[in-house]
């Protein structure tokens, strides 16, 4: 005796959020039943294991049927097959496009290609996110990437409109797309201490200040590619380290401002030239795609690590960078104020974000 067929279809599609999450997390039906049993649903309605199994299977089937629609969420609202209340639709989409920070950290900056997809089982083993869930997340990244690649207009807004995501999630996806497009290196050991959210913040800064879209908002790829002209102009900043007078002048202005305000003044004074060279060299090299990829690793190696070894506190860091940036304005012979601000504004906030343990 065996159950050959077992279905339950409601006029309003019944979806249990807990089961949905288990499905998204890539649990098999049997594992999901186990988890649910442990969760104590059975006591709620005098249910037996069979009831739970039947319910889980029904829901899994429903989710599988919905999955196609979730790939283009706008369809979910005007499809006729499932009658799903709007607030549930929002939940379905939001959860479907949600991702594990541990997983995304692994693929951040990698090319969203078949090659990477093949490595997903390694990532799955490493992050203990199930392979099925890894694939879903990876495919989501890829799908979003593919759609927004060809669209004009602001990146975050495009993602939000096409995938009906919340602002927060849309921003995260923008970061992922941005990183994937520019292939920023994030996997090196020195960068391991940074979380996805650190990078997402930096991506937000870069997108809103360094891309073509930051100046002109109707260009294709405007938010995905860095502004080439701006990168060229960054070379001009070299004068701050190549001109000895300017460098000394800059240093003395900064030191005057900092004196007495920090415990690590001596260290700051001592490493000023090195740090300044580091930052400006990063800026000058950004015309090379290879160096763009190493942007974050360079920030860490050239700036964050030296400061950390001198035991600067976060407040010291802030103080230093503020004065470092502002003092440049007082230099009479330094004419590239606009580029300087555009560069330092982003670098400053990125370093603030990245300066932690």
């Amino acid at each position, binding site marked *: 005796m065996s159950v050959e067929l077992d*279905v*339950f279809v409601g006029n309003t599609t019944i979806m249990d959020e807990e089961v949905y999450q288990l499905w998204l997390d890539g649990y098999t039906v049997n594992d999901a039943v186990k988890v649910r049993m442990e969760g104590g649903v059975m006591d709620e309605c005098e249910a037996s294991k069979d*009831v739970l199994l039947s319910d889980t299977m029904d829901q899994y089937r429903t989710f599988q049927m919905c999955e196609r629609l979730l790939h283009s969420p706008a369809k979910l609202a005007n499809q006729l097959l499932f009658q799903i209340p709007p607030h549930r639709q929002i939940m379905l989409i939001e959860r479907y496009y949600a991702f594990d920070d541990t997983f995304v950290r692994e693929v951040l900056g990698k090319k969203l290609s078949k090659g990477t997809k093949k490595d997903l089982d390694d990532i799955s083993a490493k992050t203990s996110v199930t392979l099925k869930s890894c694939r879903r997340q990876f495919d989501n990244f890829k799908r979003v990437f593919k759609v927004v690649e060809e669209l004009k207009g602001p990146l975050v807004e495009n993602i939000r409109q096409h995938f009906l995501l919340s602002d927060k999630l849309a921003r995260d996806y923008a970061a992922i797309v941005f990183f994937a497009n520019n292939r920023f290196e994030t996997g090196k050991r020195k960068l391991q201490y940074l979380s996805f959210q650190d990078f997402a913040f930096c991506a937000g800064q870069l997108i809103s200040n360094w891309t073509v879209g930051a100046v002109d908002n109707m260009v294709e790829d405007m938010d995905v590619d860095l502004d080439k002209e701006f990168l060229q102009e960054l070379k001009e900043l070299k004068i701050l380290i190549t001109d000895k007078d300017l460098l000394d002048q800059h240093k003395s202005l900064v030191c005057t401002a900092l004196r007495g305000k920090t415990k690590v003044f001596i260290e700051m004074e001592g490493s000023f030239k090195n740090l300044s060279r580091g930052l400006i060299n990063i800026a000058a090299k950004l015309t090379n795609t290879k160096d763009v990829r190493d942007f974050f690793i360079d920030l860490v190696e050239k700036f964050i690590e030296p400061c950390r070894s001198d035991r600067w506190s976060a407040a010291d860091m802030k103080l230093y960078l503020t004065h470092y940036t502002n003092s440049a304005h007082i230099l009479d012979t330094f004419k590239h104020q606009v580029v300087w601000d555009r560069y330092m504004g982003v670098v400053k906030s990125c370093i603030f974000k990245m300066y932690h343990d």
Partner: protein
Amino acid sequence: MPGKLKAKIVAGRHLPVMDRASDLTDAFVEVKFGNTTFKTDVCPKSLNPQWNSEWFKFEVDDEDLQDEPLQITVLDHDTYSANDAIGKVYIDIDPLLYSEAASVISGWFPIYDTIHGIRGEINVIVKVELFNDLNRFRQSSCGVKFFCTTCIPQCYRATLVHGFVEELVVNEDPEYQWIDRIRTPRASNEARQRLISLMSGELQRKIGLKVLEMGGNAVVGYLQCFDLEGESGLVVRAIGTACTLDKLSSGSAPNTNTHMHPNTAPASNACNSPSKDGKESPLAHGCRSTHNSPVHSVCSSQRLSQNFSVSVPTLIFTGMGSGGSAGKEAGPLRTLLRQQTQTALEQREFPFFTLTSFPPGFLLHVGGVVSARSVKLLDRIHNPDEPETRDAWWEEIRQEIKSHARALGCHAVVGYSESTSICEEVCILSASGTAAILNPRYMREGCLDIGCTDHRFEEPSPPNCGFCHIPYDELNMPFPAQLTYCYHCRRQKVPDVLFTTIDLPSEAAVAGKGCLIQARLCRLKKKAQGEANATAISNLLPFMEYELHTQLMNKLKLRSMNALFGLHIQISVGENMLLGLASATGVYLTALPAPGGIQIAGKTPGDLSSEHISSIQKRINDTIAVNKELYQINPPELAEEGVGSPIPEPRHRSRLFRSHSESSDELSELDLSHGKKDAFVLEIDDTDAVEDIHSLLIDAPPPTGFYSCNTENMPGISNWTSGVQMFTSVRVLRLSNANLTNQGLNKIFTDLCENLLKSFYFKLRSMIPCCLCHLNFTVAVPEEELIQVTVTAVAMTYDKEQTQEKTAEKPVNKGSLEAEEQLQFPLELCADSSSSNIQTASKISGVGESTNMSPRAASVDYGSFADRCSTWLELLRLKAHTIRRGSVKTSRRTQSLAHSVSSLERCSPLQEGRSRSLRSSRSFGGSSVTVVKMTPLSFLPGTRIIKYLGIINMFFIRETTSLREEGGVSGFLHSFIAEVFAMVRAHVAALGGNAVVSYSMKECVFMENPNKNQAQCLINVSGDAVICISETDQESSASTANTGQTGGSETDGAT
């Protein structure tokens, strides 16, 4: 040329990719009606084409308008090879043919393909211009409204109920034609869908003609069915009730809304149910049923029915002791009444009504369930234009039903339905209904209003018990039954148990809540062919019915209830077994005597240890006690003594439950005289019997917060909130071990049904407190070792709080002491008067006025009190009674008072805690504007239907040759059912509606061949498309609602 049909193709969306190279589609549309076809331009390379076509016009007869669907085919243009079909949409334009319904069909329809399912959507606008001379064409019946709803539709008033209409049409099934061997499955499926659509159109038109002949303008309770007879053909048949309906203005309160609020039925209804005779002789209940199986031979066309007719003696399942109470002559007035009604009805061939609930006053008395079955051998339908054979078969059955009703002293059958079960060449035809006496006023020409006129010269019989009074002559009873005087009015006789196929009348007085009661049965049979097979089946039928009834009766007793409503017995035939499933809603009618318990007895004392028996007895008694609490059954009679509650000592008990509330000793003695025939002594004579008893006890009560019923109204619950979830569930079980016994099968089948219910409770737990209404189980044996159960029902949330608030404001709540006081007083009077009734039966008619009046009034009061009684109070009383049982009568009152006080403290906190937990999660069914609600009921809680847009009757076939890829059989059926729902919703939305009421899935035939990776499924659904508005909206903005539908109601201007 009485009509012009216009169609416009606007756009498509979400089309499938038909050209792999470009990932796009070059779509165009063919619009076909009758033999005329139009085409749109090709919209190249788009998955969301905008055609914006011209208006395609078809000039057609209205006969065709009724029969034919508009057929829209979406294709992919291909320059070099044949165009590929994407899918089709069939639009039934019937709703456009009557003026009051929809005026335009416009909206997005799913494009459906029988192989691939839904493939995108298409936006279509359809209009019909009817010319005025259509009356000359009597072949058409445009303008007759059809309703699936089995009550008078909301926003209408029945001025006249004409009666039964039926029709059937037959044809060859395209699936079995020779051409099927060479055409594709898609072509074959589409031919079938189209044929069935045509046949239903034709059927509806023919029924409409009959209605017009009778002078009616509508069919209510329209029930259409398909018989897929395989080789021998395809039968589409329908029955319904012809009526003349008047549209109510939206301002006036529709009388039909009473069924949504049974407890608040206006008091004025009381005078609407006049019976011409104050003292009709009461009585009757039970079921009659017969089996007739004239068998046809396949090979010879000659009918052999005479030789083969297997007539089973009529079985009567009442099981109660013989009726021996003293009777009285029927008054002359009553005879007159009966004659009048009879003449009105006798003019009709079949005085049948497919309605299950009626306007107040329509139903005077209910006799009991009548049913008939007949086993037939199918032979090929030779001439589709002359379906005489099938007609004759049904004619036979209907005659039998009619004669059963006669035998019960009734002139009409209500809640009538017909069904078939087919396996290979054997077909069981079944019909069942409830014998009843109706108020003749509804049948007479020219009598208009339900409301008021006649009762000047009639003494109204109490509305809340009148229908229970027996319609037959108690001296000449059609079956043994035990009669008592009605516990409400004390004047008429009532049976001890009442079975019906109708819904609980809204005015009926009940105690506690109702519940779903099912009897399930499997019987193995040998595989056989032809006549031998038919004979074997017809031999089994009576035994199955008997056992089903016994099960029902036992389960009813186990729940301490005394009446069944909505009884539906399905017997399904398979190659090697018969399945029987009886479903009904049990309820405690306060007009009927309290049910006795169940007593277990060993056949021979030495057989089984008495210990064993007493342990079973104890379990049964415990179950009864638990059920009483669960369903809050605390009828007023209980106050008298611990009647009906299980009593450990069998001897005592039989005596006690016989005595009911009559406190006088003489009366108990009197009743005891025929107590020996007590049907509720279960004898344990072998292991089978033990199994039976165990299976009785298996039925798990629904979990806390759930109730269930299979009727329109849930007895005892009326304060619905807005949460509604309609669902369909299908489960198929494969029996693997070949050597199954009847017992084993029964267990499997019972578990299957019980597990389904458990699944529902679990899935719908977020809706608690909630009630599963209209639980409709259908069983089938699709293959030798498969059992299929299909369930459609609706879960509705209700407000637990409100009940309590409602009770709180009633005068009842003066405190428990006073309540007890009130309890005792009238009952003692009642008891006295009833005993005097019995002893001096001859005097009753005269004496009754004075002695009966006061106690009756009091007891009626009390009855309504009981209805509203708050739960803790009921619980308290129950406890008090339990304790009190066995105490000496004289000290009864004081004792009970003391107990009630003490138990008050104990009980109330418990109850509060419980209600709090139930209230916790009540948020479900948040809706948006585009939502189309569906329900098998005739109403949606919290809303009022302002317009009926027409009947939805759709038939779909889905087939796959890639079963595994579609997720196996479950995946296949899951998506198909979802698709059917989607198509129903789309059609309703296109008609401008926002809900489907009286929805039902008539057919769900599933066939699979896993080895070939194939499966096929046929589904037929129907319902009424409606526009409903929320009641709160209506109150707050009544004026806007009125102006919004000026077209519909003429009297708007006046209000």
